[in-house]
């Protein structure tokens, strides 16, 4: 007989303040981390760099999405400049490692810091304007950053605005294939994930939430809006910068065309589908947005050729557009089923199984 607790009852302060208050949740989190660490093994033994590369791009996006969710989901400040902040981090890392031979970790840290400074600067308008108006101000940030990289030769490195970097090396290990690169990215992802989880339940995180829910009320109860709005921009763009820098080391090239406006909008889509104001939602959203088009591409073509017997060449245009229709349809479907995103869905599943099979 398995006994299950009927509620959350803490008897110590440590227990109450723990990140995961339930033993089951702690076990799940540990198992998830272990799974993430072991994930490459089956792929590696199958020599499947393809799937590993997909996982890697998801991990990179998840880091960026967590950062954006801190700003948009937790603090309520809309930003369409996330791609721009990522570009700032990417170029900072690329310049340091290609021109000044700085090691990988310095490059990533510098990417984060530079993006943080840029992001904080462009966050200043948030003190005066809100909502859609702020969205337009951050849109300007995106365009200004793109323009600057494009036109300042020192930053962009010439007409092509691309800078190459070497494979990162740590303690003599060169990260030169998809599996190794995964282990390069994973620690940053875990840091970003658990860092964000801890941040949002701290004093700072509660201040963010207060600002989001009603900034005047927050100010009255003593939350320094000036400080916390800028802090949210700083933290968010630090995440973006780290993601951008990692992206640079992953592709071994910095090119601002990887961080255009459409990328910023994709990040917004990730956190909206994943769930605003949820760390795990950011990750689920990143998986949804990055994985689904690829899964569709792999299945739709396969189904058309093998089930319906139509050669790809005859229907390629249709299939490509059909995938977009399905993708868009699924976004609408998921949001219609659960407007609060995938995180809420995950929460509902957990709640259901807590009482299963004897729900009341």
């Amino acid at each position, binding site marked *: 007989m398995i006994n299950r607790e009927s509620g959350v009852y803490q008897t110590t302060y440590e227990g109450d303040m723990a990140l995961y208050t339930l033993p089951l949740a702690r076990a799940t989190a540990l198992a998830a981390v272990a799974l993430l660490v072991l994930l490459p093994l089956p792929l590696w033994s199958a020599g*499947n*760099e*393809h799937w590993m*590369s*997909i996982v890697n*791009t998801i991990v990179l*996006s998840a880091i960026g999405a967590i950062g954006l969710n801190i700003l948009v989901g937790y603090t309520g400040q809309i930003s369409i400049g996330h791609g721009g902040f990522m570009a700032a981090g990417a170029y900072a890392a690329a310049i340091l490692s*290609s021109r000044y031979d700085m090691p990988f970790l310095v490059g990533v840290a510098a990417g984060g810091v530079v993006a943080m400074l840029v992001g904080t600067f462009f966050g200043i308008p948030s003190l005066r304007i809100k909502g859609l108006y702020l969205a337009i101000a951050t849109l300007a940030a995106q365009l200004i950053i793109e323009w600057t990289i*494009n036109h300042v030769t020192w930053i962009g490195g010439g*007409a*092509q*605005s*691309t800078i*190459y970097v070497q494979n990162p090396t740590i303690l003599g290990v060169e990260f*030169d294939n*998809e599996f190794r690169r995964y282990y390069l990215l994973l620690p940053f992802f875990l840091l970003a994930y658990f860092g964000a989880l801890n941040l949002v339940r701290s004093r700072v995180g509660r201040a963010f939430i207060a600002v989001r829910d009603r900034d005047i009320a927050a100010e009255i109860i003593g939350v320094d809006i000036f400080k916390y709005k800028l802090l949210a921009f700083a933290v968010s763009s630090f995440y973006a910068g780290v993601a951008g820098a990692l992206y640079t080391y992953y*592709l*071994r*090239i910095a*090119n601002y*065309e*990887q961080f255009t406006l*459409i990328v910023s909008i994709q990040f917004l889509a990730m956190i909206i589908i994943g769930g605003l104001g949820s760390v795990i939602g950011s990750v689920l959203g990143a998986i949804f947005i*990055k994985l689904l*088009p*690829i*899964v569709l*591409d*792999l*299945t739709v*073509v*396969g*189904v058309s*050729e*093998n*089930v319906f017997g139509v050669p*790809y*060449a005859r229907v*390629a*245009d249709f*299939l*490509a*557009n059909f*995938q*977009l229709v399905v993708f868009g349809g699924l976004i609408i479907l998921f949001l219609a*089923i*659960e407007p609060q995103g995938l995180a809420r*869905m995950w929460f*509902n*599943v957990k709640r*259901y199984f807590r009482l299963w099979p004897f729900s009341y």
Partner: protein
Amino acid sequence: MRIRTLSRVLTVAALVLGLSGALTAALADHEIVAGGQCDRTGATKLVGEQICPGVLDYVNLVNKKGGIEGHRIRYIEVEHGYQVDRGVEAYERIKREGGVAMLDYGTPIVYALTPRHMEDKIPGITPGFGRADATDGRKWPYIFPLAATYWSQMGAGMKYVKDSGARKGSKIAYIFYDNPAGREPLHVFERICKQEGYGCRTFAVPPPGVEMASQVLDITRRMRADWVIAHLFGKSPSISIKEFKKNGFPLDKVVSLVWGAGEHDILAAGWDTAQGYLGMQFAGVGRNFPVIQEIVKMYRDEGREVPATVGSVYYNRGVLVGALMAEAIRLAVAHEGLPVTGEKVRNGYRRIRDFTLGGLLPPLTVTEADHEGGGWVKLYQVRGTEIVAHTDWFHGYRDVVQDEVRKAAGKK
């Protein structure tokens, strides 16, 4: 939503995914695998929708005729929607399937994939998608532009201008889309201008390139340019044609580089409006080539309607891609035998000599030092309702272009 319904939906979804995955896993032997990315839905879908069928049709034609030395080519096309992430995924997918030759589609994707090509020793071809510096195969052994790069296009454009009567003091304007691809030929333009003593000015059109009234007004009324070199993408070429026409500028003095010279650009501007417009091509236009006729015949033999795009500007570029890939694989098999590897295909590309495909291609000769194949282009002009040849294959200012390539190879 009820959890029970949700779990049912998920089960069905998992079954569908598993089934189709198992079905696609079926593979055949004795094939040579090549692959390429395509953009049928993204920023350049008008181009992708024509280039990619060109590649597929040519590969199909080769297979119909018995393949390469008896081996079929399996060409894997992967849609990436002009996104870098999906480009990486496409590359890895083709690599996993055993691809030995690849087409890289889109300038940012070409840049992002360059390190992978070099490490995995799989040659990537990038006709028209940039990387002028990759002309030097000693520095970039696995990147093949295989068609006139933007630098060579600029050199050729300036040569045409000179041959048509430009001399010291002539005023030449360069109007370009303000992105890396647009700026790539900028310094070649400025260098030739200085060398020839032209009075030159450059005009940037900021993305998304749908507003250029002030630039064109400046070119036609204030600068009073004698010649214009245009390097625009997407919707902007058609807008530039309309603006030049509106300002009374003779369109036969406007030379557009390769991405502003497709039928849909002319159509969007209006054929009437665009009369005389000069467009640069790195593959022939029209159906008057033996290989295009063979493709038309292939369609008719199968009892299918010949698509209207066959013979169009971008379709023929797709045929060029397929033909060069097939030729390199053929040379690899002929000289080094099976199994075909990326390295052998690279050597195959470097063995291409005077490969013209009955006039569809310029006399292409690829060497280790010249992965571009000579930088040949041809000007076509809009006359009536057709795009007709205006010059023969030519190239220009090779010394300047090669010097730039040398300089780029020396840079880190």
